[in-house]
């Protein structure tokens, strides 16, 4: 019977929930401390001789940009888990990561355009790097739409896994094409974000912030996975509830006849 299968599948997630409950508070604590250190260091970092104080935007822009790609690779690994190993936690991980990844990608876009405004004079320039991030953002939204379009999560998981992997293969191709398209139209680069050599004074705060944001993602992801597991538990219990109603009514149908609202109202 399908129901028992679903319930045995929950056995493994149950252990995951126990583990999550134990480590989440610690993870959250470490994330908060690292974020505080990172923020302090970025506040204390000197101004760049070219960009002045706007370089401070880099300390939050770069971690978000890094996460936008990192989350997609996490989802790709999870997609492999869904398609190849059929691990019950894999599609939970993939589904929970998508909105978080979309949020970080959105932040990368917004901070990027806020960083670019003083340089370009407009909020948005079809700069190769930002444009690629924008396309990535659209792909995240498409993935979320796919998850929302199908009611049965295990059916949606297969489709989403295929789309995630195709996306992972396509991202470098898109990146390359956008670079090419961009240089075709604008031979001279408008600006070079960050520059090639990074001063040590910037490197440390950036590194701390990157680690802090990665930990933030791990924390949020684990919590979101826990929610997703509970949501599926609610779903399977509700289906059980729906089928039990019929059994109950079979036993009590005779007596229920009398309780029907009498037609003459």
């Amino acid at each position, binding site marked *: 019977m399908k129901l028992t299968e679903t319930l045995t599948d929950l056995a493994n997630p149950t252990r995951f929930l126990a583990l999550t409950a134990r480590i989440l508070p610690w993870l959250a604590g470490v994330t908060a401390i690292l974020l505080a250190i990172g923020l302090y260091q970025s506040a204390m970092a000197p101004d760049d001789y070219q960009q002045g104080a706007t370089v401070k935007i880099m300390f939050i822009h770069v971690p978000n940009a890094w996460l936008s790609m990192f989350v997609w690779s996490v989802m790709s690994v999870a997609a492999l888990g869904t398609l190849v190993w059929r691990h019950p936690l894999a599609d939970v991980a993939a589904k929970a990561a998508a909105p978080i990844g979309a949020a970080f990608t959105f932040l990368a876009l917004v901070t990027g*355009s806020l960083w670019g405004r003083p340089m370009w004079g*407009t*909020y*948005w*320039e*079809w700069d190769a790097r930002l*444009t690629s991030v*924008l*396309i990535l953002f*659209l792909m995240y*939204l*498409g993935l979320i*739409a796919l998850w*929302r*379009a*199908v*009611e049965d999560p295990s059916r949606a998981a297969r489709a989403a896994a295929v789309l995630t992997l195709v996306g992972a293969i396509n991202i470098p191709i898109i990146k390359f094409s956008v670079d090419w*398209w*961009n240089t075709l*139209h*604008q031979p001279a680069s408008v600006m070079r974000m960050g520059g090639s050599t990074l001063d040590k004074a910037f490197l440390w705060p950036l590194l701390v912030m990157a680690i802090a944001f990665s930990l933030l993602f791990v924390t949020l992801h684990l919590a979101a996975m826990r929610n997703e597991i509970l949501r599926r538990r609610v779903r399977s219990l509700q289906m059980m509830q729906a089928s039990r109603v019929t059994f109950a009514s079979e036993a009590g149908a005779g007596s229920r006849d009398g309780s029907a609202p009498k037609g003459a109202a």
Partner: protein
Amino acid sequence: MSALGALIRRDIRIALRVGGGALIGVLFFLTVTVLMPFAVGPDLALLSRLGPAILWLGALLASLLTLDRLFTADHEDGSLDLIVMSRTPLELACAAKALAHWIAAGLPLIIATPVLGLLLNLDGTATLAVAATLLAGTPALTFTGMIGAALAVTLHRGGLLLAVLVLPLSIPVLIFGVAASQAAISGPLPFGTPFSILCALSLASLVIGPFAAAASLRHGLD
């Protein structure tokens, strides 16, 4: 009145639930708009000149493509039979369904316009003008598109056929919508003239759409 309220509430609720298509329209709008610069090039001056036209085309396609299921879903599960039989006039029921669709799928397009305006290098006035024309014009798109959606039930076909049927009908809306936005940005016409024609088109479609849709639904059921 409470019957129409119930219909509007139900349709909006379904559009926002899992499986509903309310936000896919906005995503489509976003994607189409982002595609344009790859075709015409990233020249900001050019983009800001084409901006209103790009946004209008995107909104037109987005609001049309989401209309596909307006009546078909109700037809497939038998709800449409009961709606036709009910004491509520079918014309009003059609208008209520279109209104619910516009709230769930049309309004988000207008809310997304400022963000897309930023991507196309439109300044504040231009974005405001495009958003205002879309606010006045998208009801016309929904209510004329509804006729096509009703025909799709009759013909047992949707999708591209619907687009082919309805796109020619929406040409006037497109002309005056883009004209009004251009007038607000660069002139020389005053903004008011094309804008009031746009409003008139919307009002006319509010009347024509429900009657035409109801007529084709009545004859199309079997």
